């Protein structure tokens, strides 16, 4: 590992730490029965079922995680404009096994956050019934799981020759 990758790793650990700290705050608030109000146009959250609440919390945590990584990612790709050499010093770390495993997690997070976000728009715009809302959530979880596993196989395959 070179010096540039070591600096990247420090940033990466900070990202993981921020996600961990945020998770603790969210979990503690949820355990106290804290407000889980969505930003519904007609006020309040669109669903209060157990699945809806779990989806709300997962959406929030995946969203924060993706945003935290985005902050680091803009900086590491931005290194290209400092020098191509610096970018090429840091970039190979993305091909290492720990980062590949992280990328699998990132893929699951992006797939769920995307699917669930589109589901919430559909629920709001089309005023879907609770039955449709819950059915769509099952579809989102299924697509994220299947797509995540298939994508992870592709991401991890270079590690196995």
């Amino acid at each position, binding site marked *: 590992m070179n010096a540039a990758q070591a600096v990247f790793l420090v940033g990466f650990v900070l990202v993981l730490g921020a996600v961990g700290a945020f998770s603790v705050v969210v979990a503690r608030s949820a355990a106290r029965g*804290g*407000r889980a109000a969505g*930003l519904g146009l007609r006020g309040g959250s669109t669903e209060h079922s157990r699945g809806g609440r779990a989806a709300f919390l997962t959406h929030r945590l995946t969203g924060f995680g993706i945003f935290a990584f985005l902050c680091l990612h803009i900086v590491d790709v931005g290194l290209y404009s400092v020098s191509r050499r610096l970018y090429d010093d840091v970039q190979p770390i993305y091909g290492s096994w720990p980062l590949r495993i992280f*990328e699998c997690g990132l893929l699951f997070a992006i797939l769920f956050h995307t699917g669930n976000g589109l589901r919430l728009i559909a629920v709001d715009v089309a005023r879907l019934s609770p039955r449709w809302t819950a059915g769509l959530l099952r579809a989102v979880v299924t697509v994220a799981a299947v797509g995540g596993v298939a*994508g992870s196989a592709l991401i991890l395959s270079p590690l196995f020759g």
Partner: protein
Amino acid sequence: MSSPAPTTSVTRPAAWELPALVPDEDARTRRLVDYVLLRATGVVLSVLVLGHFAVTHFVTDVADDNSAFVARRLSSALWVTWDSAMLAAALAHGAIGVRLALADYASGRRRRVLHRTVVALTTVLFVLGAIAIARVAHV
């Protein structure tokens, strides 16, 4: 002097008379703007981010995403547009989303400080990202 007749017209109460939980008109407008922006950027990002991930992980393996790959990709106007739109949409979406979440966990001065930190951070990142795209693409 006769006492003034009881008024029936509804006037907007002064800000300090509003209960804390009833948002005033400005707050409602901000809420609506946030609501629309969050969802509009979300729809755009569902294409841009998944496409970006697919190109950098599935079409090309992540081990081959070197500077030559970046230079080749950003020599096309499509990808310059793609990355610029993704940068702006992702940061706007993230800033609004995080600000919204923070409102559930912080209040008063602490919330204001956190909000300003998020806005400052995303602004700096946008400038950094925009400079990078412009320099790589030789715009």
